[in-house]
């Protein structure tokens, strides 16, 4: 049975996630200085120079990136709760969503650890640093766990037939992002051009598509929590939201 305290905690989760995403941005852009991303064609010396010119700043950037990743996770739990409510029963789509989300989060962790290794030991070989950097960027941009995650989210949203929590267009937005992510698969083939990890299709378009998606997620989750809170106050059951 949902209580007002549950809703307050979930609302706090959303605020914490906003802070998490802000920390990710600060770490990635402000301290790691990885926007624009270094070109895959950059030499080992150039990669090393980028990380060793300000090693403390890069290490702090990694810390913020990893801390931000942890703090950004709770919003996905709130999404999971609503997807389970929408589906009811065995919740197959919600399970697929949370599993693929968990695995794709590993990609963020991996690139954080790899970049921290780059800044950790200045005397290591430049070739080793280049390989670590390659692995980090491929982990950051290769999308294959994100694709089923977004498809599951889209299909879950469609199951909210009454559109109590999510409008139909939000489901379509998720499906579209899954399609956009397919192009990111090509990052392992190309070192330059639109499909490389610093290219418009490998990096910028998926990143830009994520912005309206995250804003929409927060908007509709805050709205859903308000709806459930009002229903609780009126003594209406909030379980079994499936129409």
């Amino acid at each position, binding site marked *: 049975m949902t209580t007002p305290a549950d809703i307050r905690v979930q609302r706090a989760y959303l605020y914490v996630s906003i802070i998490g995403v802000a920390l990710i941005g600060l770490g990635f852009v402000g301290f790691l200085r990885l926007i624009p991303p270094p070109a895959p064609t950059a030499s080992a010396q150039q990669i090393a120079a980028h990380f060793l010119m300000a090693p403390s700043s890069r290490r702090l950037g990694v810390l913020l990136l990893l801390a931000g990743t942890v703090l950004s996770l709770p919003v996905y739990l709130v999404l999971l709760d609503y997807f389970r409510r929408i589906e009811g029963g065995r919740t197959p789509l919600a399970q697929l969503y949370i599993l693929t989300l968990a695995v794709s989060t590993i990609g963020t962790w991996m690139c954080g650890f790899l970049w921290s290794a780059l800044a950790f030991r200045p005397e290591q070989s430049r070739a080793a640093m280049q390989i670590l950097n390659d692995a980090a960027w491929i982990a950051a941009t290769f999308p294959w766990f994100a694709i089923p995650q977004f498809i599951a989210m889209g299909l879950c949203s469609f199951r909210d037939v009454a559109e109590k929590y999510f409008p*139909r267009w*939000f489901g*379509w*937005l998720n499906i579209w992002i899954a*399609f956009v992510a*397919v192009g990111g698969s*090509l990052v392992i083939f190309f070192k330059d051009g639109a499909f490389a990890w610093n290219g418009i*299709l490998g990096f910028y*378009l998926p990143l830009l*598509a994520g912005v309206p998606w995250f804003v929409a997620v927060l908007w509709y989750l805050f709205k859903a929590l308000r709806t459930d809170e009002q229903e609780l106050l009126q003594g209406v059951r909030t379980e079994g939201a499936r129409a």
Partner: protein
Amino acid sequence: MPELAAPARAGRPVRHVPGEPGMWIFIFGDMTVFAVLFGVYLEARARQSAVFFRSAGHLSTTVGAIDTLLLLSSSLLVARAVRLMGRRRGDPAARPLLTAALWCGAGFVALKVTEWSGHLAQGFDPLTDFFWRYYYILTGIHLFHVLVGMAVLGYLRTQARLPSLSRGERRLVEGGGCYWHMVDLLWVVLFALLYLAR
């Protein structure tokens, strides 16, 4: 005497968005991605026009034209079928139209695979030069959309069996048809960019 309901206003068309409004986020979003791809291709071609035009000479305009004819025909068949399925009572003629559209799609896929095999056998792979890289990527991403579209047509075909469709089902059918038309439109642009612009 009970008050009669006010008559509907004459002369004002009823607004109807084919499919559903949210679906157009997906369709326009996808078209935006392709627009970016086309822009990237044109920019690369402008920088290396000699390489592009030399390599594009190896493509068969006839094969491209047949591909275009297949997709345009399938679009016409799908449009007819969706119209029939939109009627209050479903029309059994819709199902064979969708079957024929599926065969056109299958023909496109078979022709594309054959075309690629021919190019690869001649030694033209994605790493040969920039033209071939973009050729395989653009036609490959489009082919992925065609395959998804064929799955959508398959779903439409199952819906064509029903004696009548609910409003929601009709919207899905229209949306599926719109997706297939988008796939067709994208191919027309690709045909012009890759096969005709020399």
